[in-house]
C-alpha cells in the first residue's frame, strides 16, 4: 500500500488507518464525530495527498475543452471548475476539479483510485494538441483545511512574498486559486473543499508538507481522517466516485448534467447529447430516514408496501450534524418522486421509513 509523506506524522498522532484506493490513510485520529463537528464549528485539517495532481501546460484550455465535459477554457485566470472526464459512451471516468492557474498552465485534481485512468485518458486525448501533461502527484502533498475558522487561522499564517506583500485571503473567492507564502513556504491555495464549509486546499511540495501541517496544527486545529471527510461530504450532498459515480453512469444519472457544455466537441459529447431531455434509467436522490438506524451502501429502497426494490443506497450514514439518517440512492428513473415522497429502506431485514428530500442535506449559514 502507498503512504503519503505525512504517514509518520499520522502515526505519531495515534491515527487508525484504512486502505483507501490503495493508500494507507488515516480514517480517524480519535473520535470521528469530534472531527466532523470540529469542521462544522471551528476548523479541521486533512491530509489528502493521496489525490492526484496533474499539470497541463501549453494549449491547456483548448485541450481540456476536448478532454473533459465542461468549457474550462472560459475560466478566468485563478478560477476553478468542478467537472468530469467521460469515456466515449458518456460514462464517468472520474470527477475532477480543474484550475486555471494561467492561460498556458492548468491544474487537474483527480481521485487517487482513478489517477492512472485519468492520466492515460488525458495522454490519449492530447494527440494533435500542443500540450505537456505532467503527473506531479508523487512530488506534491495536498492538505485540506476546512471549517468556519479556517480563513482567519490561515490568514494569520500567511507570510510576505518576494515583493514583501502578504496575500489577503479575502480576495480569494470560492473556487479560486492563488499562490501565497505560508510560514515561508510556497503554496498554491485554493478555496475549494469537500465538506460543505468554507475552507482551503493547499498544494505544497512534499518537502514542505510537514512544516505546513505543523503550522496549522499548532493553532489548535483538529486533525481529521477520512471517516469525517466522508460524513461531511455526504451531508453536503457531494458525490464520491465508486459510490455515486461510476464508469457505467453518466452525469445525467447523477443529476450533474449542468456541468456539461454542449457548445464544444469533447470525448463523450455525441453520446451525452442524445441523452438530453431523456429519462435516465436511474436517478440520484437524497433521502432522509426516521430514527437512528442508517441505511448504508447497497441497502435496497422500496415504495411503501412495495415488494420489489426500486433502487439502492450508494452512501448512507447517521448524520452527525442533523442527528437523523441520510442517504443518497439511485432509484428507478421512471418514477417521478418529488420531495416529501415516502419510501422504505431495508435495514438488515427491517423496513425503515425514508422520505425524499432536497439535496444537499446540509448547507452552511452565511
Amino acid at each position: 500500500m502507498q503512504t503519503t509523506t505525512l504517514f509518520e506524522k499520522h502515526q505519531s498522532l495515534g491515527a487508525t488507518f484504512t486502505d483507501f484506493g490503495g493508500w494507507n490513510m488515516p480514517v480517524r485520529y480519535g473520535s470521528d464525530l469530534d472531527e466532523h463537528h470540529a469542521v462544522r464549528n471551528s476548523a479541521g485539517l486533512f491530509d489528502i495527498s493521496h489525490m492526484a495532481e496533474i499539470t497541463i501546460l501549453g494549449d491547456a484550455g483548448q485541450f481540456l475543452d476536448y478532454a473533459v465535459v465542461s468549457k474550462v477554457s472560459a475560466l478566468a485566470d485563478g478560477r476553478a471548475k468542478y467537472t468530469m472526464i467521460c469515456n466515449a459512451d458518456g460514462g464517468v471516468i472520474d470527477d475532477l476539479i480543474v484550475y486555471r492557474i494561467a492561460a498556458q498552465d492548468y491544474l487537474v485534481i483527480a481521485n487517487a483510485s482513478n489517477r492512472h485512468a485519468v492520466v492515460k485518458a488525458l495522454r490519449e486525448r492530447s494527440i494533435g494538441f500542443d500540450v505537456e501533461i505532467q503527473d506531479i502527484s508523487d512530488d506534491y502533498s495536498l492538505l485540506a483545511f476546512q471549517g468556519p475558522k479556517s480563513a482567519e487561522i490561515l490568514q494569520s499564517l500567511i507570510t510576505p512574498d518576494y515583493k514583501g506583500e502578504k496575500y489577503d485571503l479575502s480576495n480569494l473567492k470560492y473556487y479560486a486559486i492563488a499562490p501565497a507564502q505560508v510560514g515561508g513556504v510556497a503554496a498554491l491555495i485554493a478555496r475549494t473543499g469537500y465538506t460543505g464549509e468554507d475552507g482551503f486546499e493547499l498544494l505544497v511540495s512534499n518537502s514542505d508538507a510537514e512544516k505546513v501541517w505543523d503550522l496549522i496544527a499548532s493553532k489548535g486545529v483538529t486533525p481529521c481522517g477520512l471517516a469525517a471527510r466522508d460524513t461531511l461530504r455526504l451531508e453536503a450532498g457531494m458525490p464520491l466516485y465508486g459510490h455515486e459515480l461510476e464508469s457505467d453512469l453518466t452525469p445525467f444519472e447523477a443529476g450533474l448534467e449542468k456541468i456539461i457544455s454542449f457548445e464544444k466537441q469533447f470525448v463523450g459529447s455525441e453520446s451525452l447529447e442524445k441523452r438530453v431531455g431523456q429519462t435516465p434509467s436511474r436517478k440520484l436522490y437524497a433521502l432522509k430516514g426516521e430514527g437512528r438506524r442508517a441505511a448504508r451502501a447497497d441497502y435496497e429502497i422500496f415504495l411503501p408496501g412495495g415488494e420489489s426494490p426500486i433502487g439502492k443506497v450508494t452512501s448512507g450514514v447517521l448524520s452527525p450534524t442533523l442527528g437523523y439518517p441520510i442517504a443518497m440512492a439511485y432509484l428507478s428513473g421512471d418514477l417521478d418522486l418529488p420531495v416529501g415522497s415516502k419510501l422504505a429502506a431495508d435495514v438488515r431485514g427491517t423496513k425503515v421509513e425514508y422520505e425524499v428530500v432536497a439535496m444537499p442535506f446540509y448547507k452552511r449559514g452565511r
Partner: protein
Amino acid sequence: MTNPENLKYTKEHEWVLIEGDVATVGITRYAADALGEIVYVDLPKVGSNTSYMKICGEIESTKSVGELYAPMDGEVVEANTSLSGAPETINEDPYGAGWLVKIRYSSLPDLLSAADYNALTGE
C-alpha cells in the same frame, strides 16, 4: 489497552463477567476501537432468550455495523437502556458503564481467559 483479568472473553470480541447465575456482557475495547465512535445500539429485550453464537443485537458506528453474538444460552434479565441516549459510552468505558446486557445463563460454553484473548488480538 489492557483487558481486565477478572473477565472472560469470546472470539467475537465480547467480554463476560460471571456473577452467580447471571453474566454481564459487553464488547472489548479492541472491538469498540475497531468500530469507531458508536452511534446506535440495538439490544435484545428483557425476557427474550439468547442462543449461543446467535445474533442478539447490533452496534453501529458512523462507518460500520457490528453484530452482537450471544455468548451463551439463557434469558436476558437486563439491558443497558442508558446506551440508547449515549451509545458513545461503549467507546469511553467498554468494561464499565458501556456494558450491554445481563443474561441469566442456562449453560456456559468455554470462554477465553484474558491471556488467551490478548494473544488473539496480538497484545
